[in-house]
């Protein structure tokens, strides 16, 4: 019996495969399903990985090398006092439902983000905006209440995309943007489908149809990639499975860097973390390369500050307090920390945290510190560690790009409080000259590296695997996104 069934099955399957492989469609794998498809009302980076540049666009956007380039604004000028940004908008841009894009949409989008009932997760990006005015439909004049050298970068984030007044309320389930793809369907729990936007204002998309499938389990994801069910997995979650892909000639593996930083955050308000010598000792005691090897099979770049190689003005500061257990012991003795002193490290679920915690605890044991590892769920981490700062140490990935500002905040969960850093950061945001800004970015990084408020571990790698016949995918990831606008099949 099975002898008859097997060839029949094989025949049916072969047919299915031939039809599915028509080279104008693309199946993309993502680990996490987004909670809604509106990037302007929730923080999850999964939303950006579906929508950024694909469905929604802002006045400006970020490209792979981190540069800010024109989006729906074809150009802009900045006044000499750096307080007025005048955007010249593209003519003839239409939303996917046919609604026209003009300055009224810009005004609506920015005012919606700062309104009292706004639930924009990055409301702070819009804080410098004093007003948005429309002298004519294709000119938007944004006036700031203070100079802000990071304003334009903020407006390139997924949180600052243009949404139309008629569709804004329903974008969560039926996103209507201006991008080269338009949304067709979301089968919750399984996939999002989109198709090429025939009326796109710019370079049309290279594929006709995109299906984004959500596969959380790394083994299931690897199986789907190896079986050819998935053409692209732009951010693959299990580096230890990469060798299976490398052995497969049909697959291309690309390891790059993201703007995300894995940091061992310390509660600077609590003893002994309030003592800089103790924090320096922790940095000296941790061998970043071994940590990276243990967490992600060696993928990831060590960093010495809260900044990564994909960010402009990056400097390598890993030598500030290099791996040196001897030095660590000496500093601990100097700070009066008795051998055997213990503290608690709270670990949210990602592998960098759970696995990293174990490796780091072993390294700290070498210099005489006992670490109690406490695994917790992410919502619990948000409440206990992030909101209430009720913790001693934790390991977490800060995925927001170029977020040096968090160290200048009055109240943030690691309780770093440095008037010098705040002054430097203020100077940086007010700087109008590019050279001066880069210099200040360097000073900010150096100040953090020296103060060691946290132990800076490494930049999260972007591990991509895709069909070797595809081109146009990003190697590095300067902000959370999965830009599919340039992707095409090469044959």
């Amino acid at each position, binding site marked *: 019996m099975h002898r008859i069934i097997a060839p029949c099955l094989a025949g049916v399957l072969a047919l299915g495969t031939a039809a599915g492989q028509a080279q104008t469609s693309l199946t993309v794998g993502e680990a996490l399903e987004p*909670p809604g498809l509106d990037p302007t009302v929730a923080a999850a980076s999964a939303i950006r990985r579906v929508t950024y540049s694909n469905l929604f666009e802002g006045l400006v956007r970020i490209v792979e090398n981190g540069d800010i380039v024109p989006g729906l604004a074809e150009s802009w000028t900045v006044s000499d006092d750096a307080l007025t940004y005048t955007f010249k908008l593209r003519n003839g841009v239409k939303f996917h439902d046919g609604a026209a894009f003009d300055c009224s949409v810009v005004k609506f989008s920015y005012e919606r983000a700062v309104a009292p009932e706004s*639930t924009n997760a990055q409301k702070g990006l819009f804080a410098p905006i004093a007003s948005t005015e429309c002298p004519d439909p294709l000119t938007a004049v944004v006036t700031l209440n203070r100079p802000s050298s990071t304003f334009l970068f903020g407006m390139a984030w997924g949180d600052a995309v243009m949404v139309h007044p008629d569709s804004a309320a329903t974008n*969560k389930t039926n996103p209507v943007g201006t991008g080269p793809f338009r949304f067709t369907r979301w089968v*919750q*729990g399984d996939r999002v489908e989109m198709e090429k936007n025939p009326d796109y204002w710019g370079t049309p998309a290279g594929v006709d149809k995109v299906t984004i499938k959500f596969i959380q389990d790394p083994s299931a994801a690897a199986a789907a990639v190896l079986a050819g*069910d998935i053409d692209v997995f732009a951010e693959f979650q299990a580096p230890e499975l990469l060798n299976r892909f490398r052995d497969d000639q049909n697959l291309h593996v690309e390891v790059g860097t993201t703007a995300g930083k894995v940091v061992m955050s310390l509660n600077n308000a609590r003893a002994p973390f309030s003592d800089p010598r103790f924090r320096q000792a922790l940095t000296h005691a941790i061998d970043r390369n071994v940590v990276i090897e243990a967490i992600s099979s060696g993928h990831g770049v060590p960093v010495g500050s809260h900044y990564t190689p994909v960010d402009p003005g990056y400097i390598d500061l890993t030598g500030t307090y290099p791996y040196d257990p001897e030095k660590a012991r000496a500093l601990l003795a100097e700070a009066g920390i008795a051998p055997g002193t213990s503290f608690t490290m709270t670990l949210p679920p990602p592998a960098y945290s759970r696995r990293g915690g174990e490796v780091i605890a072993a390294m700290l044991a070498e210099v005489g510190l006992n670490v109690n590892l406490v695994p917790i769920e992410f919502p619990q981490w948000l409440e206990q560690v992030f909101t209430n700062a009720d913790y001693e140490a934790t390991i977490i990935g800060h995925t927001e790009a170029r977020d040096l500002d968090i160290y200048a905040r009055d109240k943030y969960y690691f309780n770093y409080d440095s008037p010098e850093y705040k002054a430097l950061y203020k100077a940086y945001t007010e700087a109008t000259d590019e050279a001066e800004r880069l210099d200040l970015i360097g000073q900010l990084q150096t100040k953090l590296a020296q103060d060691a408020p946290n132990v800076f571990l490494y930049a999260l790698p972007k591990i991509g695997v895709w069909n070797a016949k595809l081109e146009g995918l990003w190697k590095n990831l300067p902000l959370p996104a999965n830009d599919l606008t340039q992707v095409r099949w090469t044959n």
Partner: protein
Amino acid sequence: MAAYVSGRILSLVLTTLAASVVVFLLMQLLPGDPAAVMLGVNAQPETLAALRRQMGLDEPLLTRYLSWIGGFAVGDFGTSYTYSVPIAELLGPRVMVSLPLALMAMAISVGVALPVGVYAAANRGRAGDTASMGIAQVAVAVPNFWLGLLLILLFALELRWFPASGFAGWENGLWPGIRSLILPALALGLPLAAILARVTRSAVIEALGEDFVRTARAKGLSRRATLWLHATPNALIPVITIIGLQFSFLMAGTIIIENVFNLPGVGRLVFQSIAQRDLITVQSLVTLLAASVIVVNFLVDLAYGWLDPRLSTGGAR
């Protein structure tokens, strides 16, 4: 019989209601604020407050319970925090994955276990019995997620007979849908079949020792006819009990298997909703699952009454 059934239905409703209270209170104890989970680490306090107001999280506990359970009673399970669509709408397509999966797993379990169990009982002590029960013993010990991974390796990656993961969708036809459920159904069903086969074997062996079997043989019925017409039907009560228990177990098993095979079913929705603190979805789903287990137990009770009428009339005969 009518009084028996209506009494059972009343207790069914009360049990579900009690389960809903427990589930609702547990959700309140779960650490983590759903609004904070949605807005992440850069959210400002007033943004959080605005979202909590929109989600109705600032209302008192009792108000929230009553409005939820009131809607639940009329089939309005609320709106998912994360997806912003009615939970009933989310649930429909999920049930269309999980229910066929559970039924297929059940069919595999019963379809394999009954013949094997009866065969082993009839050949008690011989090589066939020893071999099949030996295999069953191993299969009982195999975790279903691991069996799932093995099945993927062999049938999806090596032989390429079935997709490695995911669900083709019923809209693409019956066969693609069933095809994507075969491996997960095997992974779920085979370990259950092993347990069921062992139970069937011992129940049939016990029945074979009863007086009525000797009577049947004495009046000239063949060994085979005695086995299938007399011994097996009388061995069904413990088998049905285990099938009922296995159905509840399948509900939990699908959570794991749906993750291994990446199937968009109810189990994965529960898992995801817990991780994202989509509390309203979790409490509605868990209450529904509890209700479905209660209903299955009810059906099993009815089946007892049908198999053995003495049970529903309080033994009066």
